[in-house]
């Protein structure tokens, strides 16, 4: 299990050090600093073995978090824990920065004492932790016996993510389908790989212990219903179902029920959380197509022409479009002409950045550039990194549609109809690259 946990600043000074196991000595703190933080080479692995001690590290801005062990621990668990630790800290005091960590070091020690015991991760749900680890000193401490036992049963209970007795005057639900569409395309326009990784984010403000059921146009579910002869609107549901390659759920979702009936039912945490992640690879709507043309004119000049085409309903608008065209390291000057938006050569980033605020569907736009090169003796050819793109579109490129989200709370007197529900779809570019 985890033997110790250290947090360092970018210089390698230790900000937090908590040792859980006797086999980890103080010298481990220095070993990591010397061998990893101060190492001259770029980090070659997130797991480092120094003198039979294993160090797992993650970096958040310029803060290093390192977990140390001398045993054969579950490595995936250690990383999951480190991420969770970051989430918990962020939930308590915002951004993970040197200043915030120094200002909250007492709190961090208190958290570390609670969420890791003898190196075993314990309940790390912020919702539960916040009920008894507060920064308000004595005033914040639970006073009555009922309060105390309520806390302990929540921390250890089956529904560790939600406390009892939550009340809202207005029961409201916000549901965001956030997708990032990833593409790798060959210069000839052949799709080398494409996938959508999506997340269903929820904000729920519901009273009591509501039971929720979430439905979407999952092909397996739709087909099953189709077979049963219950399709009342074949034109609508038949074609628009999507094949989900795989999905994972927040721990509130009953996995065995999903496995047997493919229904998504759960008691939601209060506030914001990620209900589900999924991945699709079939029938993806690629919102943009990039057509590059790079021509080397002699040894000191490059001509680049890039066309982008938007490929969705003309009534929809894409936003925050940015095309990044890499330039060689020995670029001396660039002239750009673009039809739409603004384009600029950024020498520090070795790229031409072309920005367009808005673009409707089924349109196209073009940029051409002349790149002057300095003559070099460098034998090595320019690697021609791919042209990458960023954008945001108001639909889900996977084709996912939310069919329903039902809320049942039998003990309180509100029904599904009383809950105000909001649904929003946002498609963003993930790694959206076209080789040139």
């Amino acid at each position, binding site marked *: 299990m985890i033997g110790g946990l250290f947090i360092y600043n970018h210089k390698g000074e230790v900000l937090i*050090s908590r040792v859980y*196991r*006797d086999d980890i000595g103080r010298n481990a*703190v220095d070993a990591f600093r010397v061998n990893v933080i101060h190492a001259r080479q770029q980090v070659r692995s*997130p*797991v480092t*073995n120094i003198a*039979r001690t294993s160090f*797992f*590290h*993650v970096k958040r801005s310029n803060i290093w978090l390192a977990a140390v062990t*001398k*045993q*054969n*621990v*579950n490595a*995936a*668990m250690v*990383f*999951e*824990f480190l*991420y969770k630790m970051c989430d918990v800290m962020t939930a308590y005091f915002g951004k993970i920065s040197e200043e915030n960590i*120094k200002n909250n070091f*007492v709190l961090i*020690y208190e958290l570390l*004492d609670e969420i890791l*015991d*003898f190196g*075993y991760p*314990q*309940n790390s749900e912020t919702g539960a932790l916040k009920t008894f680890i507060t920064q308000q000193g004595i005033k914040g401490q*639970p006073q009555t*016996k009922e309060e*105390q036992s309520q*806390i*302990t*049963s929540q921390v*250890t*209970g*089956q529904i*560790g993510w939600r406390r009892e007795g939550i009340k809202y005057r207005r029961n409201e639900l916000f549901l965001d389908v956030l997708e990032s569409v990833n593409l790798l395309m060959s210069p000839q326009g052949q799709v080398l*790989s494409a996938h959508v*990784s999506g997340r269903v984010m929820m904000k729920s403000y519901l009273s009591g212990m509501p039971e929720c059921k979430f439905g979407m146009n999952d092909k397996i579910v739709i087909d099953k219903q189709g077979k049963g002869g219950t399709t009342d609107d074949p034109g609508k549901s038949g074609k628009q179902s999507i094949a989900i390659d*795989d999905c*994972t*759920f927040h*721990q509130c979702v*009953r*996995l*065995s029920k*999903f496995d047997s009936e493919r229904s998504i039912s759960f008691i939601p945490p209060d506030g914001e959380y*990620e209900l589900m*992640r999924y991945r699709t690879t079939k029938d993806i709507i690629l919102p943009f197509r990039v057509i590059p043309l790079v021509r080397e004119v002699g040894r000191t000049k490059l001509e680049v022409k890039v066309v982008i085409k938007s490929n969705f309903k003309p009534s929809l608008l894409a936003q925050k479009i940015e095309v990044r065209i890499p330039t060689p390291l020995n670029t001396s000057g660039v002239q750009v002409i673009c039809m739409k938006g603004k384009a600029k050569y950024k020498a520090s980033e070795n790229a031409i950045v072309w920005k367009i605020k808005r673009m409707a569907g089924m349109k196209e736009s073009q940029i051409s550039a002349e790149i002057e090169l300095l003559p070099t003796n460098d*034998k*090595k*050819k320019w690697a*021609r990194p*791919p042209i990458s793109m960023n954008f945001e579109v108001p639909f889900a490129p996977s084709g996912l549609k939310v069919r329903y989200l039902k809320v049942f709370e039998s003990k309180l007197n509100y029904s599904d109809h009383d809950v105000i529900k909001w649904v929003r779809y946002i498609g963003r570019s993930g*790694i959206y*690259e076209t080789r040139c």
Partner: protein
Amino acid sequence: LKVINCCVWDPSGEIFELKAELNSDKKEKKKEAVKKVIASMTVGKDVSALFPDVVNCMQTDNLELKKLVYLYLMNYAKSQPDMAIMAVNTFVKDCEDPNPLIRALAVRTMGCIRVDKITEYLCEPLRKCLKDEDPYVRKTAAVCVAKLHDINAQLVEDQGFLDTLKDLISDSNPMVVANAVAALSEIAESHPNSNLLDLNPQTINKLLTALNECTEWGQIFILDCLANYMPCDDRESQSICERVTPRLSHANSAVVLSAVKVLMKFMEMLPKDLDYYGTLLKKLAPPLVTLLSAEAELQYVALRNINLIVQKRPEILKHEMKVFFVKYNDPIYVKLEKLDIMIRLASQANIAQVLAELKEYATEVDVDFVRKAVRAIGRCAIKVEQSAERCVSTLLDLIQTKVNYVVQEAIVVIKDIFRKYPNKYESVIATLCENLDSLDEPEARAAMIWIVGEYAERIDNADELLESFLEGFHDESAQVQLQLLTAIVKLFLKKPTETQELVQQVLSLATQDSDNPDLRDRGYIYWRLLSTDPVAAKEVVLAEKPLISEETDLIEPTLLEELICHIGTLASVYHKPPSAFVEGSRGVQHKRLPARMGAGLGVAPAAMPASLGGAPAVGGGLGDLFDLGGGVGMPTGSYVAPKTVWLLAIKAKGLEISGTFARRGGIIQMDLSLTNKAMSVMTDFAVQFNRNSFGLAPAGPMQVLTPLSPNQTIDVSLPLSMSGPVMKMEPLNNLQVAVKNNIDVFYFSCQYPLSLLFVEDGRFYRQVFLATWKDIPNDSEAQFQIKDIHLNSDVASNKLQGSNIFTIAKRTVEGQDMLYQSIKLTNGIWVLAEMRIQTGNPNYTKTNGFRDCMQKQMYDSTSVVRFSSK
């Protein structure tokens, strides 16, 4: 906080100030002072002098202050045991507090204070807390038992805490169950044979129920524990799999990987024709692919594991090649791992795509990555014959780029392609020769020289090319020197008239001016061959070469099986068994996959071989001779145990030695790996043995030619002779070794397998066997059972013959095969054995008799060690 920013640390002054503040009457001031103390402690300053003052703050209602004081106590109690006792009262009192949070805090902290006197006081409160009405206290107490066990294992057993812990597995609260499972698993690891976890279908059912209800971390503890269970038949195995598969959709990657581990392990028991087996295989792919969309560090862990899974069951991911394509922004460690998996998945169906990708990668920036990509192209050529031509032309394109390391890497792989497809692509040699001058790495130079020598008859100026290398012969690395010697001899055999002078020159360079014994030996052999029988020389030097294998870097099957049992853990990340990086007794126990059963045949598998009662440290016991883990297709020959660590770096100023023994072609060798874990270079190695039972002694000095620089490992093979002084050791096969280097002399002892001493001429005369067998007195006889081996008598006999155990006769009595065998030891002792194999029942009974020729006494003790080891 201000203290952290202090540049000058004035110990006496600041401590004095803190002391005053700690003893202040104002609560707020006190708390601030304790905070300052903790801050100093964090940055590594010694504030232990404040111990009594801080402990005085412990009696407080303020939970935050209390926690800070506890934190201080955990850090310094060990260095101030006498004063730590002051804290006991407060702990005991807190364990009775009405607030469950305080009770839990007290029991949690007490367990972290490693002072003997305190642990005594811990027992009573812990007993109460284990039965506390509040689940939060119980779950904390469960972990505390593991803490206490780490400090004083005997105490935990004496106090009966283990039984209480076992009871907690049936607790109504899922988190208590999960923590109890974690604690028990940890304790069980340090008692491999204790059967502490006593998993049976009932407890398994409880665990599976808790699995659905507990936190993500608890699910991991439970799944990792489940993976150690051996289901009694394929039906049970299937029903567990069915209940574990829903975990594959969990958002936590560790839960997913642990579930994959359980499934991969239990799948072994399912008959392959079962529908469910196919369903399960299909279910495994999507979650593995999903792991690749996690954060980079987790992707790395996942990829290292997928690398194992792909080797074990390639069918799972064979259609998922695309997801392993490298993204431009992937961290380098992800890129390298993806590349590895791409090569493993490459097949005729996807080779075009793979090659196109690899070509892209070869133009990237990171040198290691580019090299690996080029090498991968070569490996594709060797793996998929249809693609070879395309691969070669891609490699030629890459050579045209003239990027130094790309060219060198390409030449190394082209050499392998030549070996795999002789007489097919030699037309490219001319292009290769153009790049001779740019080669500065030994491996590339050696490869090029090999090519020139091998195809000397097609290269007009082969002699000139090789001669140019000869100029700086002494500056070349050994690899290049050896290759050059061979290449010139090949050239001479092919074109004797023009190259006489050249061959003379290289032979004299190799034999007279070199310090490298390998080179000298090879030089003399060639010289003698050429001078006595040129025809024979031709036959030897220009002999047809064996084909090279398609797959490289495959993990050895036994290790792979073990690593599959460790999916998700560090072992799977390092691709090393836990014993290679975990100190002490933990992790020494080797895990194995369960054996597949005949459909419906519900034979309960016997205990794992490791628990057969013998000391596993004695390598090369009977089980090992049968090579249990190896499965089919293992090469014959004497069994060689994997290397184990003999000398720990911490005990030898940074020198770590691991090793094993082998018998190769009648010569006993001690294979050593020397690793320098210190900061400075090590030189002047030498080795000596103490007197031992069979007179083992080094046959020559240890050959460590180059100095061992920090973090470097070298492998040395030390031939042993039997001519050393004899002294009976306890145990008999114990060997005490002294190793010297420029720093110091270090001592360690190791045990060699007795099979090392079985000589090649150990075949007994058939006629004499029976008579001798009858003559053996009863007290020289011993019987053993070897369980769980699925071999028929012929295979067993072949395997044993590899270790010089000879089958003299065989007969079949009532469906049982009886094998009669003989063994001769180096000191002339004979051992006769009768082996009974019950077909259908994988248990062997071996009866041994001994015939003493020289040293009766020694002989008897030999047999005892030899056969009681398993």
